[in-house]
């Protein structure tokens, strides 16, 4: 991991902006242009967000709203933090308040608002129409504090680099009082409308967002692109969460609305973005009946009465060739997870909801052995709904010796920061394996306890097997064990209060935190740069009795996924009791070694006195 820059001027500008066009090799850190793959600065290259080209125009934030770790939040400004505009998936997190119920703890829905593996939510995107040659860049960011405003920028048919005079934005708009945050999920290639999923917000507490809107940015291949009103589900804004399922064969987008107040009330509809109308495809508000391990019924408020529930990505239905399916969280009357397996007939857009009938655990264990509900979900309305806490299940596969297994992981998230710190079961992610060919039968596979309250996640690869977890004081990276045994394994701990993490087109991972100047700091967590360097001596302590003790230490460098890296590591001894021994058997206090991609690198050391010594590492990149 490397710190790329520490911001100094207090300019309201994005932390990083990647030109999303394949034809461009530029990336902008704050406003300065760099060559994307080498990060070499480009002379006379500054991005402008001014439509007129005459002024420095705010667009995004370098980093504000952060709270000092352990401190008290005082910054009440109304914005996101450390905005990243990259072409991959990005999650933003708010940090200025911790441990309270407040809309400033609301969760960015980016990691789960789209269920389509091929159409993830991306608010910074380049769209291209091959039939006309038209192209456009549409960029926006949400402000979660107020939920009243967002900014969006549109650059239509630009030809040169973005930093040239002829490539100014067509429009830069702050749209007020929409009471929604929005995520772009899909461009309809027939209408050329860009489809969004939007979160409605109550104007009072603003911590009761359902997300009932589907709506569109119309005519994106024109200079006058504009948002339509969206379908009018206002009355359900406080009771439903919405996700984008995918695209019908008629090119229309399909959405699911899931009721917060029960687990068994789902509505699926198709959005006609040309007419701004919808057609209901599916409703099911039937209470499941008890079958097998599934107790059925209504868990009511006892096990988290009010929770936003987010379904998994879609995947090939193993029981119906050519069709799709997904998992939707459902907790039975005993508070035990028995997700619905919902089938999607892609030819007819008919949906069928199936009850999971068998979810089993080792021995006499039950779900409560590993997991417990966020009790805050059971309290009053003003804190019960909302995007501050939610349940999400996601599915992915892992192949071992030609055998592919499908897994489902259940996440419980709370944007408040430390709400689950005292109870490990509230911050446990449980993973189940799907019985091959039988999606309604799940078997407990593994569970992982996040060290601190998980505020949100970011997917760090497209296959959903590397996951970053935001907490208030650290960022954790987990990789699903490729051998299929251990489940999610912690591979890296980055001790920063990140407020955004995302990937660029080169699959590099970028992050922002507030930095020492409170103006933002940009990190690059690229796979070729070690996230962790370990030095482990052969013994944890030595009993020095006046004679030199010869021993060894192993040195390893790992990337963010826990994979060994071959890098040059300089070891420096601090203290007088220990020395390093080089290849000429000379005792030295500084030694440079190269780590291996396959094995431990061994360094000879010698204990030459009493007392404590440290070995300090630095990496040459």
């Amino acid at each position, binding site marked *: 991991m490397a710190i790329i820059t520490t911001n100094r001027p207090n300019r309201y500008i994005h932390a990083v902006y990647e030109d999303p066009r394949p034809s461009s090799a530029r990336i902008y850190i704050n406003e300065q242009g760099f060559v994307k793959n080498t990060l070499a600065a480009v002379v006379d290259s500054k991005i402008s967000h001014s439509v007129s080209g005459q002024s420095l125009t705010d667009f995004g934030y370098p980093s504000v709203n952060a709270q000092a770790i352990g401190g008290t939040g005082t910054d009440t400004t109304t914005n996101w933090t450390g905005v990243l505009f990259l072409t991959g998936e990005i999650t933003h997190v708010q940090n200025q308040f911790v441990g309270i119920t407040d809309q400033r703890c609301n969760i960015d829905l980016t990691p789960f608002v789209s269920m389509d593996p091929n159409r993830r939510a991306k608010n910074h995107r380049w769209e291209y129409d091959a039939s006309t040659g038209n192209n456009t860049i549409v960029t926006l960011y949400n402000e979660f504090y107020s939920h009243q405003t967002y900014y969006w920028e549109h650059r239509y048919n630009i030809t040169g680099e973005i930093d040239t005079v002829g490539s100014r934005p067509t429009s830069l708009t702050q749209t007020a*009082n*929409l*009471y929604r945050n929005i995520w772009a999920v899909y461009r309809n290639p027939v209408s050329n409308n860009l489809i969004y999923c939007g979160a409605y917000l*109550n*104007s*009072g507490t603003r911590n009761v967002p359902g997300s009932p809107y589907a709506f569109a940015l119309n005519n994106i291949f024109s200079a006058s692109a504009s948002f339509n009103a969206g*379908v*009018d*589900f*206002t*009355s359900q*804004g*406080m009771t439903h969460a919405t996700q984008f399922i995918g695209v019908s064969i008629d090119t229309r987008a399909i959405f699911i609305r899931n009721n917060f107040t029960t687990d068994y*009330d789902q*509505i699926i*509809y198709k959005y*006609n973005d040309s*007419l*701004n*109308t*919808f*057609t*209901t*495809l*599916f*409703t*099911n*508000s*039937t209470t499941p009946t008890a079958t097998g391990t599934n107790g059925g019924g209504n868990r009511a408020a006892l096990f988290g009465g009010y929770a936003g529930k987010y379904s998994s990505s879609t995947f090939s239905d193993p029981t119906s060739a050519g069709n799709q399916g997904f998992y939707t969280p459902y907790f039975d009357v005993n508070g035990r997870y028995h997700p619905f397996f919902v089938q999607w007939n892609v030819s007819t857009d*008919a*949906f*069928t*909801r199936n009850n999971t009938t068998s979810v089993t655990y080792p021995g006499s264990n039950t779900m409560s052995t590993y997991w417990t509900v966020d009790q805050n979900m059971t309290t009053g309305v003003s804190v019960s709904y909302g995007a501050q806490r939610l349940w999400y299940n996601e599915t992915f596969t892992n192949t071992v010796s030609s055998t592919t297994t499908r897994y489902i992981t259940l996440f419980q998230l709370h944007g408040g920061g430390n709400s689950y710190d005292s109870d490990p079961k509230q911050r446990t992610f449980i993973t189940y394996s799907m019985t091959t060919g039988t999606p309604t039968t799940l078997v407990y596979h593994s569970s992982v306890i996040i060290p601190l309250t998980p505020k949100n996640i970011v997917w760090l690869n497209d296959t959903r097997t590397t996951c970053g977890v935001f907490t208030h004081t650290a960022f954790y990276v987990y990789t699903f064990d490729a051998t299929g045994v251990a489940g999610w394994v912690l591979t890296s701990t980055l001790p920063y209060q990140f407020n955004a993490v995302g990937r660029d087109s080169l699959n590099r991972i970028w992050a922002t935190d507030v930095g020492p100047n409170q103006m933002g700091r940009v990190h690059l967590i690229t796979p070729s740069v070690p996230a962790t360097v370990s030095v482990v001596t052969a013994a944890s302590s030595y009993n020095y009795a006046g004679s030199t003790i010869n021993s060894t230490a192993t040195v390893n460098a790992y990337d963010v996924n826990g994979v060994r890296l071959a890098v040059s590591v300089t070891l420096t001894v601090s203290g007088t009791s220990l020395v390093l021994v080089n290849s000429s058997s000379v005792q030295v206090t500084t030694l440079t070694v190269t780590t291996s991609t396959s094995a431990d690198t061994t360094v000879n050391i010698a204990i030459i006195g009493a007392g404590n010594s440290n070995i300090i590492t630095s990496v040459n990149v």
Partner: protein
Amino acid sequence: MDSIIIERLKTDADGNEITKNYNVSYELGTLVVSEISEEKDSNGENKLIPVMIQPWKCLPDGSRDNFADSQDAFDWFNEFKDQVI
């Protein structure tokens, strides 16, 4: 074409409860729900803004069926209007 007018209590962007009127019409097997706008068209009539176009009824268990007639369509809509709009 058969049609009915219904009244719905909604919540506006400021969190206030407001009443909206909808025209629910049925023709050739399809139910169309339109919001009755206060804006007038060239004939001085309130503009209709289509909201839902429904060629079938969705049943409580998730299955679908065709509308038998306009009354069947209106009955379905009245039963499920709180869920779908």
